[in-house]
């Protein structure tokens, strides 16, 4: 057993840490969050130069052949910096889906473009009324000549407006909650009939509602086998959930540092408030929760690449539930320990708190994953 990062991983971690402290100050981030895109394309080019956009892809397609632990390391650093660029949507979700399920032609066309920073992508899968159920797809794809016609609406698509190409799930057969019949399609952002309503999210990023009105795609837009996409989507969403766990751990660790500093410097009743035992214990609880969350995130990362779907889902749901609970507790405690300063926009505390809250609400909240894990006990 070895819990240490290797030399290459440590070097990457160091590089990202330097990027965040130099180019991702709180005020710089604030300006980005308010900009039209909500992120910086310059940063994205820097990400390409650093190699993190190529990290999880095979070398044959311009990648660096990294594993899920490498991705976790990147996500943790992005969490520390509250990074807004759509790394999860483009590299983890869509890159992962193409890598695992795409045809040779699709991989050649897309993975090098993602790795080089030229292509941003988004996965349009979840729908209103489906909550976090991956199998809930009401959007329809009707066969039409050699292609398909898509109709439906997709909910809260992360980075939906920034994406040059979208991966959209739709039913080629069956009813909205059937396991079979879901297919994945590659769709251009400017396809006729596709409309994107973009909005800011509570944590400063961007998402979109995507409407499909008779959007026509050719047969080669299909990713993987027709009607058999649910396991692909589940795997991609598990991979994303594991990545979010790592991001949350990075954000929690940074938030703990900020809070500890506040306890040491803020004075009331003639002494630093960190002298008060009630507050010391609360701070200790935050640190313990973060260490436990880090362990769970590590477990999820190691199992995220597992070929055994059950083993993967068990670890990911356990981690997403646990990290979600920890993120909630740490975020709320950090705000409380900062007092009034915790609920103002001016300090990064509330921004970490909001990001942690939204991480919990994305790809299944703590209760959802606790339910999945709990149901697996019955099956075992």
């Amino acid at each position, binding site marked *: 057993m070895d819990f240490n990062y290797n030399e290459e991983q440590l070097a990457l971690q160091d590089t990202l840490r330097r990027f965040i402290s130099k180019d991702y100050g709180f005020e710089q981030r604030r300006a980005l969050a308010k900009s039209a895109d909500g992120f910086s394309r310059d940063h994205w080019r820097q990400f390409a130069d650093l190699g993190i956009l190529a990290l999880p892809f095979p070398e044959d397609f311009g990648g660096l052949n990294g594993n899920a632990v490498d991705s976790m390391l990147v996500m943790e650093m992005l969490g520390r910096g509250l990074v807004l660029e759509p790394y999860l949507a483009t590299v983890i979700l869509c890159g992962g889906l193409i890598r695992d399920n795409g045809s040779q032609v699709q991989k050649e066309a897309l993975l090098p473009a993602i790795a080089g920073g030229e292509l941003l992508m988004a996965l349009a899968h979840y729908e209103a009324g489906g*909550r976090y159920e991956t199998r809930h797809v009401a959007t329809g794809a009707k066969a039409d000549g050699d292609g398909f016609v898509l109709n439906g609406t997709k909910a809260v698509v992360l980075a939906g407006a920034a994406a040059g190409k979208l991966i959209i799930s739709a039913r080629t057969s069956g009813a909205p909650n059937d396991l079979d019949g879901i297919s994945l399609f590659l769709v251009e952002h400017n396809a006729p009939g596709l409309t994107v309503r973009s909005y800011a*999210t509570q*944590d400063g990023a961007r998402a979109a509602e995507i409407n499909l009105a008779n959007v026509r795609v050719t047969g080669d837009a299909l990713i993987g086998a027709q009607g058999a996409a649910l396991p692909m989507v589940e795997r991609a969403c598990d991979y994303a959930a594991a990545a979010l766990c790592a991001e949350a751990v990075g954000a929690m660790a940074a938030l703990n540092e900020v809070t500890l500093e506040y306890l040491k410097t803020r*004075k*009331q009743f003639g002494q630093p*408030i960190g002298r*008060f035992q009630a507050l010391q214990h609360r701070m200790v609880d935050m640190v313990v929760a973060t260490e436990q969350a880090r362990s769970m995130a590590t477990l999820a990362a190691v199992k995220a690449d597992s070929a055994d779907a059950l083993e993967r889902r068990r670890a990911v749901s356990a981690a997403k539930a646990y990290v979600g609970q920890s993120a909630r507790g740490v975020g709320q405690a950090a705000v409380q320990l900062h007092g*009034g300063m915790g609920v103002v926009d001016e300090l990064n505390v509330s921004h970490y708190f909001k990001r942690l809250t939204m991480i919990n609400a994305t790809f299944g909240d703590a209760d959802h994953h606790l*339910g999945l894990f709990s149901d697996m006990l019955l099956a075992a």
Partner: protein
Amino acid sequence: MDLNFTSEEQAFRAEVRRFLDARLPADLSGKVHGGKRLQKDDFMRWQKILHQQGWGATMWPTEFGGTGWNAVQQHIFEEECADACAPMQLPFGLRMVAPVIMAFGNKAQQDYFLPRIVSGEDWWCQGYSEPGSGSDLASLKMRAERVVATEGDHYIVTGQKTWNTLGQYADWIFCLVRTSTEGRQQEGISFLLIDMKTPGITVRPIIMLDGEHEINEVWFEDVKVPAQNLVGQENKGWTYAKFLLGHERTGIAGVGRCKRLLKDLKAMARREMANARPLIEDQRFRDRIAQVELELMALEVTNLRVLSAEGKKHAPGPESSILKIKGSEIQQTLTELMMQALGQYALPWLPEALDADWRGVPVGADYAAPLSGHYFNFRKTTIYGGSNEIQKNIIAQMILGL
């Protein structure tokens, strides 16, 4: 022991309902129910309607223009107002400065200020916390130097207050000021009433984590305040301050508001879907609703017990800290569950949708837009009015003698 409402109390409840049906403007209740931003005029309009009915100050004795209602009547009134989605009556005038003026102010102050509060003519705000004095309020530094002059004595006030709620609208601010640096720090504090139009006062917004402008910093630079605006005695302000905080805490329980939130949460859980079934059929989520309902049932009875024991004449005691702790926690749980019920639709941030005039298409359900912001905003409830850590210190020291 009888926990039922008497027939008189039931008749009273019916009377309050009839009044709300007839007089609460639909646009106001619509704004409150929809979580829209309330403007100054919305609060003032409702206060004036209540005043016309003679119900402007339900927590005041009749001699000062209040209704003289007992604890149960006040509870019924607040519950019905919250259920009908009436705008909240802001506490700064009615519940905070008014009891201090009644108990410690002189006749001239009572005659001038109290009628203007109950009528909704004056908007009051609070000048307590300072950047260096939050939980340790008694360390406050804002100076008030008394100047003896032939045209009348006055104070020159210099310093800074913070966490001032809605002071951007205020006509008056009540302030704790330092009039002496000798002896214990609690013994050099005075309670001053200051006209917000006085030269030298600057109000600077503090944007909260939900992006809203609800609180301010207030700067005082050589602000001249007539000595007649001193409440009670110089250097006795700490006694009045603690008296006021006790009144603030009882209002904080907010049982009526919690009941309304719970009702809305249940309605949402019937509309939101999970696994192709209404969310309320999800045992895990339903248990969370049930658990917070238990807490609220307990708080409602505790609230009535505490208020009844105090009677009308006494200031709230340290028991009010219990109400503050549980009330704030329940409000936080309810707002959190409402956000959680939205699932991924907790993410969209549409501040424009909080404008009453907004006619855009909602993202997700029509009730979704304000809910994450409410959750974030309500983190303040365990911090303000004396943080819950401070409340626990009060219980430990004042009730338990630890």
